[in-house]
């Protein structure tokens, strides 16, 4: 607990570092950070056209679904993958100056938030193209996103600790995320599978719900109650685990690096 409060006190440092991580990558290019937007837009355009045709879905329905899905999936998987090496990456700093450990997690989270900020610019563009307004439900995306962030932060905290100790876990997580990409309705619509038993199995995928609470409002439909429940319960249980894990291993982390 004290670690996390301390980290929030010094959050400015984490934000500066996170921002600098992105700035560094694009410092000498003309478009700078907007390369993020450009490459995401190209990906969405290509996949949207191909898979839209493949599934025979109208673009006005499919394109918003794919674009918001891909943007937020990129955010979640990026945050989690990089979260695994949050401490390993900051090893230099950790071994030389005493800072709250959670600070290094915030840095990685914020870095991915900056990327998301660039990518989300595509969203209004897509809505313009398909000439569709999401309606008032769009406001639900705000609590949805806060819940998503809370869940990501505990996952990142737990993984950053465990990955510092067990380096194989980084690979395991990456593989798992690859599989989850297909098990989460990003490229496909849950409605397509409606009525089939497989969808009930897929609903056990927590990312199904994490994505739903942000994407559904943005594409104009309120998320199901079960999604809210899963995400709220996940955030509470997850943070309890995260506090326990961080509290118990805090003193060991420097020795693992």
């Amino acid at each position, binding site marked *: 607990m004290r670690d996390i409060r301390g980290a929030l006190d*010094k959050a*400015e*440092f984490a934000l*500066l*570092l996170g921002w*600098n991580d992105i*700035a*560094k990558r694009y*410092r000498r290019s003309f478009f700078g950070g907007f390369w993020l937007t450009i490459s995401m837009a190209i990906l969405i355009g290509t996949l949207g056209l191909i898979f839209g045709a493949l599934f025979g879905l109208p673009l006005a329905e499919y394109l918003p679904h794919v674009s918001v899905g891909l943007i937020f999936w990129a955010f979640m998987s990026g945050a989690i993958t990089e979260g695994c090496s949050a401490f390993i990456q900051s090893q*230099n*700093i*950790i*071994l*030389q*100056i*005493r*800072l709250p450990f959670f600070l290094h997690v915030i840095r990685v989270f914020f870095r991915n938030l900056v990327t998301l900020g660039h990518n989300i610019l595509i969203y209004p563009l897509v809505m313009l193209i398909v000439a569709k307004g999401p309606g008032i439900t769009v406001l639900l995306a705000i609590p949805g996103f806060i819940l998503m962030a809370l869940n990501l932060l505990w996952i990142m905290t737990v993984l950053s600790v465990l990955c510092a*100790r*067990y*380096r*194989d*876990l980084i690979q*395991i997580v990456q593989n798992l995320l690859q599989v989850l990409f297909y098990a989460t309705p990003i490229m496909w619509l849950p409605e397509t599978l409606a009525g089939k038993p497989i969808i009930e199995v897929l609903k056990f995928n927590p990312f199904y719900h994490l994505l739903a609470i942000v994407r559904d409002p943005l594409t104009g439909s309120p998320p199901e109650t079960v999604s809210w429940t899963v995400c709220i319960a996940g955030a509470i249980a997850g943070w309890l685990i995260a506090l326990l894990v961080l509290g118990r291993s805090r*003193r060991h982390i*420097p*020795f*693992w690096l």
Partner: protein
Amino acid sequence: MASIKLDNVTIDYPVFDGKSRSLKREVMNIATGGVISSLADGVVTVRGLDSISLEIHDGERVGLIGHNGAGKTTMLRLLSGIYEPTSGTCHIEGESFPLIDMALGIDPDATGRENIRLRCAMMGITGARFRDYYARIAEFSELGDFLEIPYRTYSTGMQTRLAFSISTILKPDILIMDEWLSTGDEHFRDKANRRLAEMVDETNILVLASHSRDLIAVNCSRVIWLEHGKVIMDGPSADVLAAYFDPPHRPPEPATANAGDG
């Protein structure tokens, strides 16, 4: 006021190789019901510090000597609050600040100004305080307009000047140093040495690890000699330095040496 109190502190490091750091081992251990755990449980630990008890009071200037691997770095990290003891207690009163790697956290692609910003935030200098510190750092570094261009374009001397100017801006309660900082060209060296000396003067407690007899003799009043994680000798600089540096080069016999007489 600052003080340090170590009571029977031991620090064991786990040393991981590729195998023992892996999950496979842990899973194997569970899967085999712990039968082969005695073989697989191969996490080697190294004792960095071995039951050390000592106190450092406000105003003391302590030198740390010992051969490579004696536990100096471990001790510095313990006193910086980075390592926590495996057993025993370590009580540190006051804020300790390690002045070890001047270039810590410097991003070569960022400009001098951005680097000052980053480093200051790392030391907790933000907001309104930052402007004041920035001006002082900029002035001391004498870099002027160079602060607006990337750090990597600086000459080595300029890089050192910037890193030094940032690192020495704070006045910590407890100053922890590993050797003296090297400080570039001649003109700047005098100025830098003056600033360091000032810092050392003003700090409540100095802990300086070094291999240099002169450095310790000049700056420290008390010297702790570490070997294999144990304190071999602890006393006034002159005595300990003489015992360590002057041949015959072996530790003085413990007081129990003449117990055989009785």
